[in-house]
C-alpha cells in the first residue's frame, strides 16, 4: 500500500486488556503520536493470542505483528504472559527458521503506566517493518487487492 | 473459450417471497434478477442453491414445472446454508444452478395410473411439484390419494394450499395425520405407516414415498404386506451432493450416483444397490 510514494506497512498489534491496552490509552491521553499504520486488537490477556491469529494477520496482508502484554509478574491473571513468552519465543524462532524476517514479529511488555514506552515502541516497530518492505514471504496472493 | 454451457457456474437468483410454513421450514420464491424462471425443470428435479462464502446445497424444486413465473423451495433449517437462508430477507440474491437429477416418470410410468403420494414432514416438498403437475394435467392420471403426516399440526408444510386447493379438487383424497394428540386438531392421530395400513388402499396404485428414512422403511414394509410390488413404489433419496453432475464421487450408492441417476429411484432398483444408505 503506497501513500505519497513511500511504502506504508500494515501493522497489527494485539494488546492485553489490563496493561498494554491501558498503556495505549495513556499514550493517547498524553497525545504521544505514533504511526497510524498500527491497529490495535484488544484481547483479555496476551496468552489469548494464538499463533494462528498471527499467521492469519500475515496471510491477510499485514506486514508486521506486535504482541503487547503486561510485564512478566504483573499479569492480571498471574501467569498469562509467562505462557505467551514461551509460545512466542518458539514461534518466532520457527518463523525465522523458515526464513521469515525476524523483525516482522515482536513481543513487548508495556504496563498501564508506560504510555511513552508504548508510543516509542510503535514508532520503532513501524520503522523497522517499513525498512523491510512488503511482506512477501507470508502473504496469500488471493487476499491481495 | 468454448461456448458450451458452463455446468458449474451458477446463475443469480433473487428471493422474491419468504413464506413461513412451520417453525423450522420456510418456502422461498426465487426468480432471476430480470423476473423470469432461472431454468425449466421436470417434477422431482433439484437445484443447487448457494450463498457465496457460506456454501452450496441441493434442494428439491417444490413448485411445479407448470408454474411459469417462479421456482419455489421449501427449506428446513438444519445446516449452515439452510440457517443462513432462514435469516435472508426478500430481495436477497443467491446463486442457483440446475436442474439436476432425473425426474419422476410422470409422462410414462405414471401416465393413466392411480397415484398414491405418501409424505412425512419436509418430505412433502419434492412431492408437491409432482402433485401440482398431475393436478395441472388432471386428465392423464387416475385417482390421486395423498397421505401426509408430520410431528404436529404446525409442522405440516404447505398447510393452507392443502386445505384450500387440494382438498377441494375432485378425485383427490387427502388424508392428514399428526404423530400425537394436540388440541385444535380433530383429524387422524398416528404415524404415517400405521395410517396407510389403516386406510388399506387397493394394490393397483403407483406409490410415491418421501420422508425420513425410518418412515420410508416401515411404510414400504406395510405396502408389501398389503400386496404391493416393489416396482410400483418410487422414492427420492437424500445424500450429500456437491457437484450435482455425477462427477465429484460422493453421492453414490454402489455404482449409481444419486444426483445423476437419482434422486428418484424405484424400490426394486434400490433393492439391487447395496444397502450402504
Amino acid at each position, binding site marked *: 500500500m503506497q501513500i505519497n510514494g513511500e511504502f506504508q506497512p500494515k501493522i497489527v498489534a494485539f494488546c492485553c486488556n489490563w496493561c498494554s491496552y491501558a498503556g495505549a490509552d495513556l499514550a493517547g491521553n498524553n497525545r504521544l503520536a505514533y504511526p497510524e499504520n498500527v491497529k490495535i486488537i484488544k484481547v483479555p490477556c496476551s496468552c489469548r493470542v494464538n499463533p*494462528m491469529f498471527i499467521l492469519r494477520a500475515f496471510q491477510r496482508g499485514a506486514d508486521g505483528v506486535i504482541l503487547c502484554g503486561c510485564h512478566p509478574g504483573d499479569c492480571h491473571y498471574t501467569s498469562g504472559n*509467562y505462557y505467551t513468552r*514461551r509460545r512466542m519465543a*518458539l514461534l518466532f*524462532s*520457527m518463523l525465522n527458521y523458515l*526464513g*521469515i524476517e525476524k523483525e516482522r514479529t515482536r513481543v513487548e511488555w508495556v504496563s498501564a503506566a508506560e504510555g511513552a514506552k508504548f508510543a516509542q515502541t510503535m514508532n520503532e516497530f513501524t520503522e523497522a517493518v517499513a525498512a523491510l518492505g512488503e511482506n512477501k*514471504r507470508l502473504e496469500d496472493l488471493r487476499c491481495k487487492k | 473459450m468454448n461456448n458450451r454451457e458452463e455446468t458449474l457456474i451458477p446463475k443469480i437468483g433473487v428471493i422474491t417471497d419468504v413464506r413461513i410454513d412451520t417453525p423450522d421450514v420456510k418456502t422461498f420464491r426465487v426468480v432471476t434478477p430480470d423476473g423470469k424462471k432461472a431454468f425449466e425443470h421436470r417434477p422431482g428435479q433439484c437445484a443447487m442453491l448457494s450463498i457465496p462464502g457460506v456454501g452450496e446445497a441441493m434442494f428439491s424444486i417444490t413448485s411445479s414445472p407448470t408454474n411459469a413465473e417462479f421456482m419455489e423451495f421449501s427449506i428446513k433449517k438444519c445446516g449452515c446454508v439452510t440457517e443462513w437462508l432462514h435469516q435472508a430477507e426478500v430481495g436477497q440474491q443467491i446463486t442457483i444452478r440446475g436442474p439436476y437429477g432425473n425426474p419422476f416418470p410422470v409422462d410414462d410410468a405414471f401416465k393413466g395410473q392411480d397415484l398414491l403420494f405418501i409424505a412425512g414432514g419436509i418430505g412433502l416438498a419434492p412431492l408437491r411439484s409432482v402433485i401440482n403437475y398431475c393436478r395441472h394435467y388432471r386428465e392423464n392420471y387416475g385417482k390421486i390419494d395423498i397421505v401426509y403426516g408430520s410431528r404436529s399440526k404446525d409442522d405440516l408444510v404447505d398447510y393452507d394450499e392443502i386445505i384450500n386447493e387440494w382438498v377441494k379438487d375432485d378425485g383427490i383424497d387427502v388424508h392428514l395425520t399428526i404423530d400425537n394428540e394436540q388440541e385444535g386438531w380433530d383429524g387422524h392421530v398416528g404415524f404415517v405407516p400405521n395410517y396407510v395400513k389403516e386406510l388399506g388402499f387397493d394394490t393397483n396404485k403407483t406409490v410415491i414415498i418421501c420422508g425420513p428414512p425410518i418412515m420410508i422403511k416401515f411404510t414400504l414394509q406395510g405396502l408389501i404386506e398389503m400386496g404391493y410390488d416393489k416396482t410400483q413404489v418410487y422414492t427420492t433419496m437424500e445424500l450429500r451432493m456437491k457437484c450435482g453432475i455425477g462427477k465429484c464421487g460422493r453421492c453414490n450408492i454402489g455404482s449409481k450416483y444419486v444426483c445423476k441417476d437419482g434422486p428418484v429411484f424405484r424400490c426394486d432398483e434400490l433393492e439391487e444397490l447395496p444397502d450402504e444408505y
Partner: protein
Amino acid sequence: MQKVTCDTLAAKACELLENGTVDRVLGWKNGEFVYDVTPALFTTTDDIKSEFVFNDFCGANFSKYLIEETRKTESKVLVFLKPCDTYSFNQLLTEHRFDREKVYAVGIPCEGMADITKVKAAAGDGITAIKAEGENLVISTLYDEDKAVACADVLAERCMVCKSKKHVAYDELLGEDGDVIDSNRFDEVEKLEAMTEDERFAFWQNELSRCIRCNACRDVCPACTCEKCVFDNPESSVANKAISDSFEEKMFHIIRAFHVAGRCTDCGECSRVCPQNIPLHLLNRKFIKDINSFYGEYQAGAEAGSRAPLVDYTTEDIEPTDAVLKGASDNA
C-alpha cells in the same frame, strides 16, 4: 539385521495369547513385497505362526493404534514397542489417550530400520527379493545380479541419529535394555540455521511447495490425536483442505509443528510416510532443539506424567527477541 528374530516374537505372542493375558496381538504382516510390511491385528495363534513377520522394514509406530484398540473391548491387547515407540507410548499416557490396563506392552530391541528409498537407490529398481545376511542385505533385482548392501548404509535417517535404545515403558522386555544415546540429531537443523534467511526461505519454499496435503503426516503422528483436527473443522475459520496458495502449506505445517511442540518424541514417522519426501522431522526437531536450549533438556515421553514445556513456565524464561537470536545463532 535385527538382534531379536521374528520367531522369538511370534513365540512370545502365541504364548501370551494361549495363557490368556491378551486376546489379540498388534504386529506386522507381509505386504505385497518383502519390504512392504503392514501393521495387522492377530487373534489366533495359527494366524501368527503363518503370517507374523518381523524384519528390517518394521518402522511403523504402534502407539497411536492403541487409542482405538483400547476403546473396542475390555480385554488386553499385546503390542510390540521399539525403544522410540515407547516414548510415544508414554506421551499418549500423559495425555490420558488410552487405558494403560488394557495394554500389555512388550519392549523389543531395535538395531535401526531400513529406508526403502535408500535401498532402491543402492540396489537399482525392480527389486524381487531381499534376504538379511549378517550385517548386510542381499538384494536380487530383475535387471542385474544380486547385490549385498550393508545395513548401516541404508538405515533410515531417524535411525542413523537414533536418540535412545532405552525402553521407557514396557510390561516385559525381550533382550536387554539399551540406553540413551546423545546422537548428533540436530546437525541437519544446525546446518539450516547456519544459512541466511533467504537461503532458508528458498529451501523451505522448495520443500513445502511439493506438499499435496494428503494428511498422512498428521494421521500417522502419535502426538497428533485430536478427535477432530482444527484444519478439518469448518467452524474453526482456519479450515484448509487443499493448498490453493503457498501460504497455506506453511500455515498447515507451522501450526501442526506448534501443536506437537513439546509433545513430539521425534519418532520420525512423519518423514517416513510423506509421499513427497519432505523432511518434516526438521520442523519438529527445530522446536525440540529450541526447547532444549531455552528451557533445559526435555525429552517428551521420557517419563509419563511429565509437564510439557509449553504448558509450563518459569519466571526467568528467555525473552522472545533474544530467543530468535539464540535460536538462530546457537551454532554460528
